């Protein structure tokens, strides 16, 4: 006769090489049967000493390194870094550059969200949307290739301007892309958003309420999915975002509870629609001018410290630059949104099934290149 049934805690390792961790991440998962007791993320596998490197480089030399942090939104990383240096060095950029930066930034947001949405479908077992999303993302990458010559890491937005003049076909091809892409979102909604299996898998799972979200430092789509209207493009405006008319979508728990995985997924689909709106308003109004006219021969930043932040596709991306007046910065500290969001994982996974870890991790949309820097 069994006197007492003893259940032991089991520890399993997910990763570092695991297809659903979206990079090199090891999760130490403590289980009680199928129930998750604790998730301990071990990071640092992609640590490339970004902050140490910056101390030995001049400001323009840092731009390519910035690309390699969030490699799915490289254009936006450059945008933020250029903005930070310009604010400190007092560089005024021509309106043509501002318009191009916003257009490229929003195209990058669409491309990044397409990866997030596509791979999220893949994580929970829907293979087709992944292929559709990557097909459409390719078209954006081709546009980036047209202007910058590169498909993933661009080195295009420099402090003071852009590295190359805009390709004459860019405006026409971007407009063609928008016409092509709009119906594809409806297609995606039919295929994945309203799919019953997908909803069953993601609704009411990993619910994050507003108070907890703010205390965890969550920003960007993940915070908005919890129902808090906070977008740096509107709340701490930079560049020329105040000229455009766009909505800030927030999660409302349409399929379950506000702030669940489905909300975090759907907020990204709706943000793509808003990005299209911004590009449509900007693409016809690009002023004439020289994109390189404001690029200084030598960038010298006066001594001081400044924290500059932008709304990256993943959340608040900030650069805290401390300068001592030399050609290279004294210290560049990055606030990577993914690094902060990964702290959530333990909190959201506790008490859920082990199979749901993948669904929750996919919904907070991290990029390990940025977590580790």
């Amino acid at each position, binding site marked *: 006769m069994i006197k007492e049934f003893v259940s032991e805690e089991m520890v399993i390792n997910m990763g570092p090489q695991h297809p659903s961790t979206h990079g090199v991440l090891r999760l130490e998962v403590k289980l009680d049967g199928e129930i998750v007791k604790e998730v301990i993320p071990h990071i*640092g596998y992609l640590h490339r*000493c970004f902050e140490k490197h910056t101390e030995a480089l001049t400001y323009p030399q840092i731009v390519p390194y910035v690309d390699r942090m969030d490699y799915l939104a490289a254009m936006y990383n450059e945008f933020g870094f250029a903005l930070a240096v310009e604010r400190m060095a007092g560089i005024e950029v021509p309106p043509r550059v501002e318009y191009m930066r916003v257009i490229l930034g929003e195209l990058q947001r669409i491309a990044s969200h397409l990866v997030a949405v596509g791979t999220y479908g893949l994580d929970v077992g829907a293979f087709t949307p992944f292929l559709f999303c990557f097909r459409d993302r390719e078209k954006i990458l081709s546009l980036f290739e047209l202007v910058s010559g590169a498909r993933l890491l661009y080195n295009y937005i420099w402090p003071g301007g852009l590295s190359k003049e805009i390709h004459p076909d860019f405006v026409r091809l971007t407009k063609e892309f928008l016409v092509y892409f709009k119906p594809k979102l409806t297609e995606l909604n039919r295929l994945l958003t309203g799919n019953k299996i997908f909803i069953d898998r993601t609704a009411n799972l990993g619910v994050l309420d507003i108070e907890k979200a703010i205390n965890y430092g969550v920003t960007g789509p993940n915070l908005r999915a919890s129902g808090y209207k906070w977008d740096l493009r509107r709340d701490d405006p930079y560049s020329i975002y105040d000229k455009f008319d766009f909505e800030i979508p927030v999660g409302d728990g349409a399929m379950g509870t506000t702030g669940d995985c489905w909300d975090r997924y759907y907020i990204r689909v709706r943000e793509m629609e808003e990005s299209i709106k911004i590009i449509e308003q900007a693409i016809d109004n690009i002023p004439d001018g020289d994109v390189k006219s404001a690029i200084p021969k030598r960038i010298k930043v006066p001594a001081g410290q400044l924290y500059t932040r932008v709304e990256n596709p993943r959340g608040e991306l900030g650069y805290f630059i401390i300068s001592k007046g030399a050609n290279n910065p004294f210290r560049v500290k990055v606030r990577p949104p993914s690094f902060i969001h990964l702290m959530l994982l333990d909190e959201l996974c506790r008490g859920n099934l082990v199979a749901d870890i993948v669904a929750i991790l996919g919904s907070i949309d991290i990029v390990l290149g940025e977590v580790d820097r």
Partner: protein
Amino acid sequence: MADTEFIKSVTDRFTLLLGEEKASQIVITESPFETFLTVPAELISVVMTELYDNPALGFDSLVLLTGNDEDDAVKTKNDDGSETLTGGNLSVVYHLESLPNRKKIIIKTIVPKANPEVPSVTPLWVSADWQEREAYDMYGIIFTGHPNLIRILMPYDWEFGFPLRKDYQNPEFYQGIKVPY
């Protein structure tokens, strides 16, 4: 963009709370782009709790926690030409934000390298957890009261010091491999 009036009102509040003598240690420092409050490490707990708890201030979000090397160690030349560094300070910069009141404030604390202890703010803001671990990892700042202060980006067995300190030296060998190889 520095909101000097607001920062002044915050320091006035601390004068009421801590008394004249202690509050005089909290100094408003103006740098060319940002104005911040310099707070001694032993007052960090009180100051942060007040900023977090007081609904009139309501700093509910810790945006960024930065460790930094002040690079103010004194260099002395030895007879054989080598240099010895003595003293020097580390610092921690907190960027706080109040989402309901739309206010921002920057707090800075400076600690000596010889005893780099700062009270942890993780009990107030969970977002400080990994950021404090990173500051420990890179600068060796000890956050007292942190639940799990271990290395985060560097290998757990890294025993060659704290890489972002300005006086950091590369190890000659790492796991039997010569550096640089």
